[in-house]
């Protein structure tokens, strides 16, 4: 019992996808499709295209880091999705045509990717 409580406290994994309050993963997926994120990223749920300039995003919800350097936390992820160069000036990922709320929807969708 104690062990179960301890392990539950360690990780928020295993209890289903992480959620972001007020954000809608389904809407995030539609936004990502419309913006053409798949031109660079292989996106689960999009058959074509599967661009190779950026990393494939399958399993992104379980990754500890964003772009290999930032903690994978909702606020940082939403900011990264919307304006990656403000966090990493040398990144090749351009700002995306999304509002802040939309970026949170996209982040919420990314957390559903197992």
């Amino acid at each position, binding site marked *: 019992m104690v062990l179960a409580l301890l392990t539950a406290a360690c990780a928020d994994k295993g209890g289903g996808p992480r959620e972001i309050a007020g954000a809608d993963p389904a809407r995030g997926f539609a936004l990502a499709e419309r913006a053409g994120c798949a*031109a660079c990223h292989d996106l689960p749920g999009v058959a*074509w295209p*599967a*661009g190779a300039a950026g990393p494939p995003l399958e399993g992104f919800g379980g990754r500890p880091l964003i772009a290999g350097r930032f903690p994978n936390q909702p606020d940082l992820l939403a900011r990264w999705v919307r304006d990656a*160069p403000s966090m990493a000036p040398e990144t*090749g990922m351009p700002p*995306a*045509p999304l509002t802040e709320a939309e970026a949170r929807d996209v982040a919420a969708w990314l957390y559903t990717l197992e």
Partner: protein
Amino acid sequence: MTASTPRSMAGWPPPTLDPAGPFADPLHVLAWVLFGMAGIVLLLVLVALGVALFGPRRWRARLGGERLIWIGGLAFPVVVLSALLVYGLSLTGRLSDEPRPDEMRIRVTGEMWWWRVAYLDPDGREALQDANEIHIPVGRPVVLELESADVIHSLWVPRLSGKVDMIPGRRNLMRIQADAPGAYGGQCAEYCGGPHALMGLVVVAHEPADFAAWRSRRAAPAPAAAAAHPGAAVFARAGCGACHTVAGTAFNGLAGPDLSHVGARRTLGAGILPNNQGTLAGWIADSQSIKPGNRMPAYPVLTGRELREVSAWLESLE
């Protein structure tokens, strides 16, 4: 699983039985007439087959006679097919007449795997170059002069016209007209190798005043400030100007699409991707992963920053 969803931006797939102009109407009518006639003939053949298999002996004997062969096998098809041919030509014959002096002319050249577009003046000289997008005013016929630079392509904008082949060494004509403003999706309809399926285009119809404004905007070269953008330097260093033209700069390559106003296009990669800085960057970095076999190489020599600079510059060319 959704396939090619980004194309929905440009109305993809274009509805094929939803005419939006006077040159698509007769084809729509003809398609249904042919379909109806084929249905009637199929029904007659099935009835004959049923009688031959299960009918009374007297009927079967009549079916087996020589007279039915002459009537049903020769006279009937000759009459029906000739009538349909005459009817079809009466509907479609005028769609490919030579342009009249008052008609707007646009030359569209099929290339592997995109469309070179040139707006012609009344003397047939190229007044304006563009690619992968055709702009027209609503409510008046526009003559498309179809050519090919390599293999046979076919231009098909289902809501505005039928398919007309683009044949090397020939000039085929096709009329389009849109009754309402909007974007009409099109597609290469003749297999032309490799990424043929990813060779799309968009026809954009404007109200006449908007069209005039578009045209004068498009005729202007890139503003002088554009050449000072850091992205222009990346464009120069990477050698992009060997294949691409940007009007008002030293970049004057002709092998690939004209990029003078690429930021204003609705799509990227010939009708297949939404157009924004992100898709531009992805296309430049590795268009081969998006449209395998297309003639633009991947650019693994650019840094992330350079990629963003050049894509930002191209997006700003409106």
